[in-house]
């Protein structure tokens, strides 16, 4: 009876196969071939690509750099976003204006924004260094020195994605019931204790959500690096996705970049799952 019901699942399944399953399986197969610009095709080279990957220091450095960049920017975004949300949460003059204002960076196209920042950071033509010189700090080699260019990438990331944290945390704050705050007031808690005992615990779940979304997004960082520094100077701002892009799209080593991508995917899934569990345990205590 109703055997034709499976027919109606077909469109969905086809789309699933076409956009997820096939590319994934194809990538796995490609990663065991030596497909490159000279010898395109699906030959079989066994684990050769994975062996080469294991010894590819540039890949692991990029991954380490990515970890630092992600953790650093997301933590700063969370802190800043939370602070901004707390600022415009209660009665503040023109808080609607502020709320919209804080969201503008997020609405800008990443590439456009990176170009904008590249101009700002430009060491001889940009406006930032003259300002810094004016206030006595002195010019900074924003994009030509490895530490500073790493900081520059972080600044742009934080500037662009703090609004996202702000938005989620503000929504969380606005959805909180009023009674716990009244009770804290009656119990005689000051603002800091109220924040630690009432506000922060109640925002635990939404914090975990916001941080995880940002961690996933941030680990895919590409446009900012591409436009701002192209991974340079040297490889000092090169992240995993950018390195994979170089190997695959610039050097056209399809087989090797497939192996890089797969390894990267597995590492990300495992790490983020563990991070998610740890975050839930640390911040969402009452739902455990």
């Amino acid at each position, binding site marked *: 009876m109703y055997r034709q019901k499976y027919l109606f699942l077909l469109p969905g399944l086809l789309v699933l196969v076409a956009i997820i399953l096939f590319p994934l399986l194809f990538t796995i197969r490609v990663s065991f071939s030596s497909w490159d610009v000279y010898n395109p095709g699906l030959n079989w080279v066994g684990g050769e690509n994975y062996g080469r990957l294991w010894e590819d220091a540039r890949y692991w450095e990029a991954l380490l750099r990515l970890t630092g960049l992600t953790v650093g920017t997301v933590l700063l975004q969370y802190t800043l976003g939370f602070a901004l949300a707390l600022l415009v949460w209660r009665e503040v003059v023109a808080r609607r204006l502020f709320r919209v204002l804080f969201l503008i960076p997020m609405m800008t196209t990443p590439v456009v924004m990176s170009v904008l920042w590249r101009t700002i950071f430009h060491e001889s033509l940009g406006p930032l260094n003259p300002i810094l010189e004016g206030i006595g700090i002195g010019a900074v080699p924003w994009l030509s020195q490895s530490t500073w260019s790493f900081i520059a990438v972080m600044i742009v990331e934080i500037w662009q994605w703090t609004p996202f944290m702000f938005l989620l945390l503000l929504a969380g704050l606005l959805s909180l019931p009023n*009674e716990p705050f009244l009770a804290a007031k*009656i119990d005689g808690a000051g603002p800091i*204790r109220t924040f630690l005992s009432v506000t922060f*615990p109640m925002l635990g779940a939404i914090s975990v959500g916001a941080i995880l979304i940002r961690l996933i997004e941030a680990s895919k960082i590409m446009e900012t690096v591409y436009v701002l520094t192209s991974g340079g100077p040297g490889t000092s701002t090169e992240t995993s996705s950018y390195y994979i892009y170089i190997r695959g799209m610039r050097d056209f080593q399809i087989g090797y970049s497939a192996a890089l991508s797969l390894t990267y995917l597995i590492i990300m899934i495992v790490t983020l799952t563990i991070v998610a569990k740890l975050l839930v345990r640390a911040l969402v*205590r009452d739902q455990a």
Partner: protein
Amino acid sequence: MAEIRLANLAHAYGNGSYALKPLDMTWRNGGTYALLGPSGCGKSTMLNIISGLLKPSEGRVLFDGQDVTDKDTGARNIAQVFQVPVIYRSMTVADNLAFPLVCRGVPAARIKARVTAVAERLGLARHLTARANRLTADQKQLISLGRGLVREDVSAVLLDEPLTVIDPQMKFELRKTLKEINREFGLTMVLVTHDQNEALTFADTVVVMNHGEVIQAGSPQELFDRPATAHVGTFIGSPAMNFLPATVEGDRVVLAGTGLSSPLPPGSGPLTFGFRPEHVGTTEGMALDGRIARLWFEGAEQIASIETAGHVFRARLPGTTASVGDRLSLRLPISALRLYRDERLVA
């Protein structure tokens, strides 16, 4: 513990109209009070003014003669239990109970002693190390109450519809606990509720409010016997008080077709007779004969809807064998008859 005085108190929100009309009241130390009225009648506004969460636009609040109108909530030494149980979710029961004392910098040994004592009294002792959000709603309400009781300087406990979200059988238990606490600790307690049953069983003095106005304040018996307005008569008592239109005949007011009659009071405006279904009897008083139109079973008693001379009223009758359609010979004692002009009690 304190006497609470509300001196010429009134509150208007931004738009200028009164949410709480001017009133003057004194609540004695250790008493139980209930603010009773429908949603939006101003009872929560009144409570928030007392607790200091809201600053009144007019008048003063005095605790034991001391003006606290400009004092912050934390400095007023009141405890409040809200409709939704409020607990600090990330803390244990013990930490929850200790919180007000920790905020006030009380020494740890003293905190431990107080928390243990209060938890013992409220029956929370065996949950002390459990996380507070694991407990049931009524236990959480007890924690809210406990946070008030741990402080020895509490002037009054304000209860903002604390029983609304509690299961019916636990409601009874919790109300009993509240009464006992009131007696043992001698705390002034103010209960806000829209449930007349809750108000009448809990409080010595019930303050009936409507449209931001205190309509009547008195003991449950007074409210039952002499409702100040038709609204109070309808709101308190189940079934509600009977109100029947009266007509003037010479110098007396009568209900046409019945024996109800009383002297004509001075003044002008439509007159209404009011009497309780419970006061209708069969032995003495003014004649109130009629035919049973409907009957509701209420255990040992029955409530009858009775038609007489074009009027309908209700009477609470002992478990008679009467049935719908029967003609009954009823009487109303003269002392039970009230007269209202423009819905306000005149006699």
